[in-house]
Each structure stands twice: as structure tokens, then as C-alpha cells.
């Protein structure tokens, strides 16, 4: 092991742009959490990130044809391609298997699915905001790769 290997993983401080982006996303998630599904406001709050992400992906696709990285793409080195492959897929497989078992089992109160767990959590606006922010972060991570 070299000295570089012993360094902490994340020693970089977030840039001001990252902090601003995070605050804007948190504020947006806070507002979106106050909307109700099956309403115009709920549709708009969800549709705006969908449109933004679709536009970014389209711009990346067009940029690729010109041989440039495209907007929002990460330029840092790719993630490690060594190490055990099975732990994360095994954990995901366990979650998926349990979801399917619960989905096909009734009553729902005894066999909660992700959707029913979300419904219970989304009753509190703060939890819904956290989940919405996590969804935005996932979309951001996807579009950056």
C-alpha cells in the first residue's frame, strides 16, 4: 500500500457552484413535497426535472456526434474496475426479491412494498422532501455519467 492509498477518500471541499446547486435542489424538493399527487401542481413539480434531464441528455447525445464530452458530463477518471462484483448486485437482488414477494402477497399492511412504504413516509412533508431530493440526486448522478 502506498501513501496515496491511505489518504482519506473525500478530502475535496465542494465548490461554491455545487453548494448553490444543492441549495436550489433542496429548496425545489421542499416546494415539490408540498404538492399533492393527481393535481396540476404535482404534475408540474415532477415534470420540470424530467424535462431538464431529458434536455441535458439530448444535448449530450448531440455533442457526442461532434466528438465533445457534452454538458454536465464528469471529466474525472472513471470508477475502479477492480474488486468483487457480487456484493452490490446481491444486495440489490435481495431488495428486488423481497419487493416481488411482498407485491404478490396480501394483505398489503402485512406485506409492504416500496410504494406503500413511500406512501406512509410521504405523509410527512419533510420525509417527502428528502425522498424527492434523493430522486433528483439519482437523476443528476445518471446524467453526469
Amino acid at each position, binding site marked *: 500500500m502506498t501513501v496515496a492509498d491511505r489518504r482519506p*477518500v473525500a478530502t475535496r471541499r465542494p465548490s461554491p457552484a455545487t453548494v448553490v446547486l444543492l441549495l436550489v435542489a433542496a429548496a425545489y424538493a421542499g416546494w415539490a413535497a408540498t*404538492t399533492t399527487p393527481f393535481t396540476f401542481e404535482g*404534475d408540474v*413539480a415532477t415534470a420540470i426535472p*424530467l424535462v431538464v434531464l431529458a434536455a441535458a441528455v439530448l444535448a449530450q447525445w448531440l455533442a457526442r456526434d461532434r466528438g465533445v464530452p457534452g454538458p454536465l458530463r464528469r471529466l474525472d477518471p472513471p470508477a475502479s474496475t477492480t474488486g*468483487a462484483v457480487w456484493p452490490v*448486485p446481491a*444486495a440489490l437482488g435481495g431488495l428486488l426479491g423481497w419487493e416481488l414477494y411482498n407485491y404478490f402477497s396480501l394483505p398489503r399492511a402485512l406485506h409492504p412494498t416500496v410504494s406503500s*412504504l413511500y406512501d406512509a413516509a410521504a405523509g410527512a412533508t419533510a420525509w417527502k422532501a428528502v425522498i424527492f431530493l434523493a430522486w433528483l440526486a439519482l*437523476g443528476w448522478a445518471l446524467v453526469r455519467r
Partner: protein
Amino acid sequence: MEGGHLPRLVSARLGPGAPVTRTDSLALWAVLAALFVAAETLAHVRAHRVRSIGSLAAPLLARTPWRIAILLGWMWLGWHFFAR
């Protein structure tokens, strides 16, 4: 059978098991979620030992059909939870 004594061919242990409770289900959800978080954390702390979900998804996201499918999945997830 003489004497009227029937042998007990089936053990009482083979009857229906204890019913699953909501607490059981939630506990398993918590355990599975914790395993996933632990695996992903390990992948970030010891990147050379365990592959993260990001490094596993990278080859898929590099291919346009998979990239579109994964992004559509993200869109469906948001629409399902927050709009419908």
C-alpha cells in the same frame, strides 16, 4: 389397524408456520437496505475490493439503449411516486 391406534405420520412441526407480521416485513426491509448501504459504503471506502453501483452501471450507461432505458426508469420512478 388393530387396537385403534393410528401412528402419527405427520409431525406437528409440519403445520403452517407462524404468520408474518408487519414488524417482520419491516425488519427484513431494514436488514436488506442496510446490507445494500454497507456494500455501497464498502465500495467507496475500499474501492479496490468491492465494485460500487456506479462502476457497475458505467458500462451500461455508456451504451445508448441502456442509457435511455435507465433514464426512462428514473423518470417512471418520479412520476409514479410524486405525480401519480
